């Protein structure tokens, strides 16, 4: 009996793996071999979630033979039946050609209102290409998916996604950009110095101002030395900086909370504002600096951008959350 159960379990696992692999092959067609197996699976996983959460069928094709990438994208969109996995015909197709060094995101008719050409050009140029320049193709694709998800969330809130026409195919909407694959990070940082604030709130204000000016300089005094070291290896895109400013504009910060020795501080937001994650500060030479290293270690984001704590992560900022309860996954509760 036990052996039969094991056989059935094995068969189910094989079927699940085969199905998953087929799903990966359908969502990610890497003809130009730009991604490894793990990266393909990761992209397919996130794009599968996009389909289940927002009914958006988002495919990725890499090819060395696009010739005219604009025409290729329209033709391939139809050939692959992009949008057919969606019940509302919502389809997106990302085409990357390393030979022509071009990237195009083709938008189906059913999503033209949600993702206008200007937005597509923006995410390509301001989010995807910076990662491509650093040779991080999979990260560039996923970072773009993040903005696509964010846009879909906003559209869902405003009923924009559901009001779209349900029409199969694409008519050439989207944008094409120079991919600049492996061109290297040529970001020129602004020479505007930003010093640490005398209070956590002042430092946070300076940080938002720097983001608004798209000042990606990792050596600013508003960061702790550990954060500065970590950020040197980061790809900080203009779109990410814009996103920080825009997403926190709607958040209502509470007063800063300090530890007993006033070495650490936290600015947090009401639990109901689930997409506004807290900020950690540490004193450095008499001013308050952002401790992004600890934030990165302790805070995670769910599919709907709600923040939660990484269970078991060790950091010195727990004092600020003594009055909150957390569920098994680390999501705060009032």
């Amino acid at each position, binding site marked *: 009996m036990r052996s039969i159960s094991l056989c059935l379990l094995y068969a189910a696992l094989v079927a699940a793996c085969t199905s998953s692999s087929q799903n990966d092959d359908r969502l990610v067609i890497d003809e130009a071999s730009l991604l490894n197996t793990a990266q393909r699976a990761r992209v397919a996983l996130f794009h599968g979630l996009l389909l289940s959460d927002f009914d958006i069928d988002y495919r990725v094709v890499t090819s060395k033979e696009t010739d005219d990438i604009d025409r290729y994208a329209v033709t391939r969109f139809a050939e692959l039946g992009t949008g057919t996995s969606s019940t509302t015909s919502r389809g997106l197709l990302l085409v990357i050609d390393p030979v022509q060094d071009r990237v195009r995101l083709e938008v189906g008719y059913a999503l033209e209102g949600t993702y206008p*050409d200007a937005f597509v*050009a923006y995410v390509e*140029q301001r989010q995807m290409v910076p990662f491509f320049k650093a040779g991080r193709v999979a990260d560039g694709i996923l970072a773009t998916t993040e903005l696509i998800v964010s846009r879909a969330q906003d559209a869902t809130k405003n009923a924009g996604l559901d009001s779209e026409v349900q029409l199969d195919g694409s008519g*050439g909407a989207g944008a*094409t950009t120079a991919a600049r694959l492996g061109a290297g990070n040529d970001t020129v940082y602004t020479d505007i110095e930003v010093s640490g604030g005398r209070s956590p709130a002042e430092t946070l204000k300076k940080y938002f101002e720097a983001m608004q000016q798209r000042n990606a300089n990792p050596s600013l005094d508003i960061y702790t030395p550990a954060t500065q070291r970590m950020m040197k290896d980061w790809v900080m895109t203009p779109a990410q900086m814009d996103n920080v400013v825009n997403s926190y504009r709607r958040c209502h910060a509470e007063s800063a909370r300090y530890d007993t020795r006033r070495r650490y501080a936290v600015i947090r937001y009401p639990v109901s504002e689930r997409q506004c994650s807290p900020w950690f500060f540490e004193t450095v030479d008499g001013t308050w600096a952002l401790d992004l290293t600890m934030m990165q270690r302790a805070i995670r984001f769910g599919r709907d951008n709600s923040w939660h704590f990484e269970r078991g992560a060790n950091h010195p900022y727990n004092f600020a959350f003594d009055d909150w309860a957390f569920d098994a996954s680390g999501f705060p509760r009032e």
Partner: protein
Amino acid sequence: MQDDGILTAEQAALLKDSLDRQSVHDQAEIRGSSRKARNNVARWAIALLLAVSVVVFFVLVSGSGVEPQAPQDVAATLNDPGGTGQMNKSFSGILAIALFLIVPLLLWMWLHNSLVTKEETVFESWAQVESNLERRADLIPALVETVSRYLRHESETLTTVTAQRSDANLEAALNELIAAQKSSADIIGEDGPDIVENDADLARLFAAQQRIGQRMQSFLAVAENYPELRSSDQFLELQAQLEGTENRINVARMRFNESVGDYNAAIRRLPASLIASAGGFGRKAYFQADAESQEAPDLAFD
């Protein structure tokens, strides 16, 4: 009556004789009318027989004869597993006449409707092309406004000769773009929807659209000299929209030409060509450069 003294014996004898004769006459008359009736029935029967004979004759003639009706033969009414059966010949004759009339009619309707569908596809695809041309036409004023605002701002801050010369180049490129757009709008305005019937007009419109594309490229090339303008989000947004519209126009043009090719081939093929000529289905023009302009280089831009 003789006993009552009303009639004499002589009179009574005359009356009896008269009555006897009347009775014989009546009987004869009854017999005669009965014979007449029989004669009528016979006549009707003969007429009916004749009518049936005529009908049978016509049926035989029209249906190549009816096979003599054998007494009921049960074996003959059983299905023959290997046989295909034989239809009643008179019915098959009528069916043949009906098919001779109805099938061509159905074929004519099908071919006509198929041509109508293909022609409608051509009109629909042209509407897509026009809609995208209008979309681009609507974007150009926004581009003009953005650049003009930038130039005004720059003229207030920069007064060097080099800057003024650059501004003149940018302004000239913009003016050429506006002129090309106007020329294209004029062609569409002149011809209206009939433009798809006219090769020369459609080629002229195509040339005008090509000019807009060239002027656009030329304008963007000049704008490269203005990093501040080029990097502004508003300009990037407009540029993305213009490039997106350009691509939509290309896709719509490609689909329009495909639908025209499909339609033009259909109206030339037999037997649809007969219906096309009778139904007034004319050839449609392709939205592409004519042979002359393909060969002639555009000297205005390098």
